[in-house]
């Protein structure tokens, strides 16, 4: 078996090295030509070299495909006949897809809210804590773990042993049993299973929220906090009246960033339940329609629905950026 592994890795390794070398050579050649060119030529050449490749890739690889997907959402499964709004009608009337939409709404409500709430609490609790580094690192760590890896980790926590005679090796069921309760097959138990999957993403995103909010809290001037203390404000009041209003902008950024990540969640659902047992979400169903059913019309429609959901966020972000730019 080992021999055959190297038979695959060998040519792949060659391709890797050749590609990296070709890329480096192309860049080097462009720079060589650019820096030797006459001043007049350079004026034009610089756009082609510096801006050209990125813009071309974005145009061909993002903008054109996005427009084509929107067009495909109005066509039938093989993109041959125009079907009007049939696919959208399908998405909003078929009961199965309504479960998918409902679940996605649950994800989008609970993940950003819980992650931000827990992240905010930890950031506040560790704000003046001595040696908070390790605590924060441990909570932040899941950010480095892939969604698939996280699914394995939590799949093990939720593991169910069907036989009464064998011990539970899943942590959650073992805890239930030690309290004399009956263990459960968590992944089959709708709608609880969706919430158990949501916990996995909350586990990952809380660290992100904590780090960003913690940095924002460090920017709240000591004097302001001390003044509030002198006025006799309790910890809770100080948090609500002083700290929170001062970091409100950052809280919004954290909420929207996590919302976007949550809308696209796919890996966790696919790995843990395959979208079965009423846990499906839009991104997973989009994958199933496009790549398993090969129904490009319905797959594209689900992708467009995802896009429509993020449009308000795009609009809001662009507006914020414009405001910031005019302030400067």
């Amino acid at each position, binding site marked *: *078996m080992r021999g*055959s*592994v190297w038979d*695959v890795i060998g040519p*792949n*390794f060659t391709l*890797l090295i050749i*590609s990296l070398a070709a*890329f480096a050579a192309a*860049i080097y050649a462009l720079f060589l030509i650019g820096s030797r060119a006459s001043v007049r030529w*350079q004026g034009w050449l*610089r756009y082609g*070299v*510096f*801006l050209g490749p990125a813009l071309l*890739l974005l145009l*061909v*690889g*993002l903008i054109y495909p*996005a427009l*084509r*997907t929107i067009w495909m959402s109005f066509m039938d499964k093989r993109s041959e006949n125009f079907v009007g709004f049939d696919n959208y009608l399908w998405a909003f009337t078929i009961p199965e897809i309504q479960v998918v939409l409902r679940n996605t709404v649950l994800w989008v409500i609970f993940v950003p809210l819980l992650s931000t709430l827990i992240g905010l609490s930890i950031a506040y*609790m560790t704000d*003046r804590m*001595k040696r908070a580094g390790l605590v924060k690192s441990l909570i932040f*760590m*899941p950010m*480095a773990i*892939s*969604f*698939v*890896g996280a*699914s*394995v980790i939590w799949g*093990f926590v939720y593991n169910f042993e069907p036989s009464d005679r064998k011990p539970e*090796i899943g*942590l959650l069921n073992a805890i239930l049993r030690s309290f004399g309760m009956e263990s459960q097959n968590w992944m089959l138990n709708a709608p609880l299973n969706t919430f158990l999957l949501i916990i996995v993403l909350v*586990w990952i995103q809380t660290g*992100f929220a904590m*780090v*960003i909010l913690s*940095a924002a809290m460090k920017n709240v001037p000591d*004097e*302001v906090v*001390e*003044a509030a203390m*002198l006025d006799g404000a309790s910890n809770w009041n100080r948090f609500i009246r002083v700290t929170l209003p001062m970091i409100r902008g*950052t809280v919004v950024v*954290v909420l929207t960033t996590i919302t976007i990540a949550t809308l696209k969640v796919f890996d966790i659902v*696919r*790995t*843990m339940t395959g979208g079965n047992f009423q846990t499906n979400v839009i991104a997973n169903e989009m994958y199933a329609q496009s790549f398993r059913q090969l129904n490009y019309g319905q*797959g594209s429609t689900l992708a467009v629905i*995802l896009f429509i959901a*993020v449009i308000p966020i*795009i609009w809001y*972000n662009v507006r*914020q950026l*414009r405001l*910031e730019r005019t302030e400067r």
Partner: protein
Amino acid sequence: MTDTSLRLSPQQKKRAKDIFSSPIASAVAIVIAVLWTIPTFGLLITSIRPEKDINTSGWWEFFINPNVSFENYEKVLFVGTGVNPPLFQYFFNSLAVTIPSVIFPITLAVFAAYALAWFDFKGRDAIFFTIFALQVVPLQLTLVPLLQLFAQGLVIGGVTLIPELGITGTYIPIWIAHTIFGLPLAIFLLHNFLRQIPRELIEAGRVDGANWFTMFTKIVLPLSVPAIASFLIFQFLWVWNDLLVGLTFGAGSKSVAPMTVRLGEMVGTRGSGWEVLTAGAFVSIVVPLIVFFALQRYFVRGLLAGSVKG
């Protein structure tokens, strides 16, 4: 503001700090941190137990009955199952997918960010805002047409704009896809950074007769190393941990699929017991964990630049 702080004596200030660092708050934070770590810790412990122990007792019993075995790792890394090669090959694939998928977008993004920050031309702001907005467009919106581009080329009205490339089933579509998807964020971050280079520095370079190309290599590139480092970690973690792009642009080929794809398959198949799954999962998360703990500072800096604007 300063008035109020002057009213506090040093003793009062010290007391204030003490109250801030309340022991209850610290204790709660520590408890949460422990809770957060237990699932990963359980995975790690399980992966080093013998198969028999794993299936007959919970991982916490390891501390009563500590049997250590690295057989699981040997099995998952070097022994294939049926048509599936061992994880070792997927580990290599993950590396081969990740390295160019990090280098290509960063290079192109530094170029574009330089142009957008320092070339004066009409439509510059429009391009910049478009790229900024593109950051948020879901990958799902581009998957199928982009795949068709790789497989069939692009023909509009009988004119072949992009020929059939015949690269399906190699790393190349995955590299290109990751490059494209990484560009908007990379350009945005680096642009914000490059704009802060003092105008005098650039103008001095122009006066000295340096052209736009030498100026890039001599002034801009050395100055942007910290920003590049931040984005490097960002993109590395993103690509290494990605499932969707590897799954779709790998075209189902086992010879290019990254570890996440294989791990997802292993979860779905019966017969992959926890001994193989936990060891496999740990192999796939150990590289990003090392990168994360070693370079956490840069990673945080990148996160802050990306989400807290201004």
